[in-house]
């Protein structure tokens, strides 16, 4: 359902991010990057809300809100 | 013969007492001379809806009873020297996590495998100091089959009341002898159960104590209080802390809950002490020999009496101090080469003469030997 995808929001909880880079590496759309040891969204438009970043973030610092 | 009057072995009386106290879980690993406690538990527990499990070793047995106690069942394990040594790490866990449980140690000849089928009282100091770090402990030691029944119940009661592991120190003589016992009516047995929290679930702090009380109320797993338990130093919420203040507070409370309640915990028997000039301090089976010896001494006109610690830890320091002011000599008789005598000496040494008399060869000390010692003085 396309709506579900657009309903979700990509959230970063910076104070929990330890900058491991795992989400950056395994994001299929290169949405993310590290800056000053923390994750950052560099290309939100490309995000397909696949949730792989959330799936593999060891620190629960990135996730999609509004999952249905 | 009254139905309730029976000839019973010490180990059997221990199980009967445990079940009367509400034991519903036993985990153990066989070892002479404690094995009958496991065997009889295996037989009796399912009849009262309780559970028995033979674990892979003593370490696992100790762990299992802690797990079961945290889940709400009164739990016990039984062992002897080598197994008691193995349980020490987890006894320390029960101390710091404040998990009620009863550990029976039927003492046999040590060290190591030693004399597996012979009696000894060589684990007295180990019962106090066997696990690492400062920790609270209560240990009781019976002198008869009936007292084994009673003290097993008392072990559970103290354990539940103070949330500490309680050690019941038997010796092979008491464990294996059979004598007359009259099992009291259920109604005449006092049973103490752990205090349960009254908080709303969200508010429960598993290690928080209120007011004067030093013992926190205890929830069980599965009741809705989703609390955390750890062997690390922890604060009132149960979560680990590295704060020296938290550490100090916790350890002090653990020690204090016994220290402050010593009067409630300590029990002892006095026999012929009123006019005694020589006091014997003896416990367990040795106290029986001592009684005979005292009777013999009295017959000879020697004023001897017995102070028998029933609670062996914490030690009855005030009473022994009192005693030492009244008598000339205290003889500590124990089936080892000198353990409890150190403590008695510490307490009484400044007031009277303290002598140790011990033997560790696998045989019960006889009344004659004690009498000789009395006569020597």
């Amino acid at each position, binding site marked *: 359902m396309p709506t579900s995808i657009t309903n979700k929001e990509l959230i970063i909880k910076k104070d929990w991010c330890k900058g491991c880079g795992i989400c950056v590496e395994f994001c299929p759309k290169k949405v993310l990057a590290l800056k000053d040891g923390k994750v950052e969204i560099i290309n939100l438009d490309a995000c397909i809300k696949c949730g792989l970043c959330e799936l593999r973030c060891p620190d629960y610092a990135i996730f999609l809100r509004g999952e249905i | 013969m009254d139905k309730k009057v029976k000839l019973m072995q010490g180990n059997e009386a221990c199980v009967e007492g445990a079940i009367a106290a509400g034991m519903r879980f036993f985990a153990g690993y066989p070892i*002479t001379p404690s094995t009958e406690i496991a065997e009889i538990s295996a037989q009796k527990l399912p009849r009262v809806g309780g559970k028995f499990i033979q674990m892979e070793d003593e370490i696992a047995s100790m762990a299992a009873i802690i797990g079961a106690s945290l889940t709400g069942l009164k739990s016990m394990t039984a062992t002897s020297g080598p197994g008691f040594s193995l349980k020490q790490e987890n006894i320390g866990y029960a101390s710091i996590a404040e998990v009620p449980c009863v550990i029976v140690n039927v003492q046999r000849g040590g060290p190591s495998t030693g004399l597996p*089928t012979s009696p000894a009282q060589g684990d007295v100091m180990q019962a106090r100091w066997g696990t690492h770090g400062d920790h609270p402990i209560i240990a009781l030691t019976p002198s008869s089959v009936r007292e084994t029944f009673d003290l097993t119940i008392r072990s559970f009661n103290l354990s539940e009341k103070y949330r500490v592991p309680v050690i019941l120190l038997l010796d092979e003589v008491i464990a*294996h002898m059979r004598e007359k016992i009259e099992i009291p009516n259920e109604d005449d047995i006092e049973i103490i159960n752990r205090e349960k929290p009254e908080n709303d679930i969200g508010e429960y702090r598993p290690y928080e104590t209120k007011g004067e009380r030093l013992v926190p109320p205890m929830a069980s797993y599965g009741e809705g209080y989703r609390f955390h338990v750890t062997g690390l130093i922890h604060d009132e919420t149960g979560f680990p802390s590295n704060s020296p203040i938290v550490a100090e507070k916790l350890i002090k409370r653990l020690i204090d809950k016994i220290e402050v309640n010593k009067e409630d915990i300590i029990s002892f028997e006095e026999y012929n002490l009123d006019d005694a000039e020589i006091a014997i301090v003896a416990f367990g089976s040795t106290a029986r020999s001592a009684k005979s010896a005292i009777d013999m001494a009295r017959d000879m006109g020697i004023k001897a009496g017995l102070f028998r610690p029933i609670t062996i830890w914490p030690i009855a320091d005030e009473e022994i101090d009192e005693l030492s002011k009244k008598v000339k000599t205290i003889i500590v008789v124990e089936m080892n080469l000198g353990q409890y005598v150190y403590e008695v000496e510490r307490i009484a040494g400044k007031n009277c003469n303290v002598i140790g008399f011990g033997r560790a060869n696998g045989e*019960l000390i006889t*009344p004659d030997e004690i009498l000789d010692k009395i006569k020597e003085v």
Partner: protein
Amino acid sequence: MSKKVEFRLSGAGGQGLILAGIILAEAALRDNKNAVQTQSYGPEARGGASKSEVIISDDDINYPKVRESDVLLALTQAACDKYMQNLKENGILIVDENVEVKDRDNIKIYRYPILRTASEIIGNKMVSNIVALGVIQGVTNIVSTDSLREAILERVPRGTEELNKKAFEEGFKLANN
């Protein structure tokens, strides 16, 4: 007999002497006496004990072990040789017919075909211990015979009551003949 009587029942492992000791003690309890039963073990718990001790008394019993016994039952030569020296002056020694008793003064010796009675008359050597109890009672009359009969019936395995009853009576007869 004095108020306190100390028994030592000895023989080979497997002869059921522990059970015999227990029954004797329980009979004493039925008579409202005190009794303590103890035993000795081999290495670890394995192997039957070869010695069972019973103290019967009107008073409290403190020291629970038997040093010098008033009565010694010895079903084997080895047991007799080992324990005879700890029989009191004027004590009672009960032995199986196979046992040869070395000279000792001041003891009363009773010699009966205990093992043979069990295996030949009763037809089951497993009941030697009960035959022995019969003999002991016949010789010492330490408890009331009815108490002892009851105590036996209560302890022996279900289905063997008759056998054991007979064993007891045969033993009792041996001593009373």
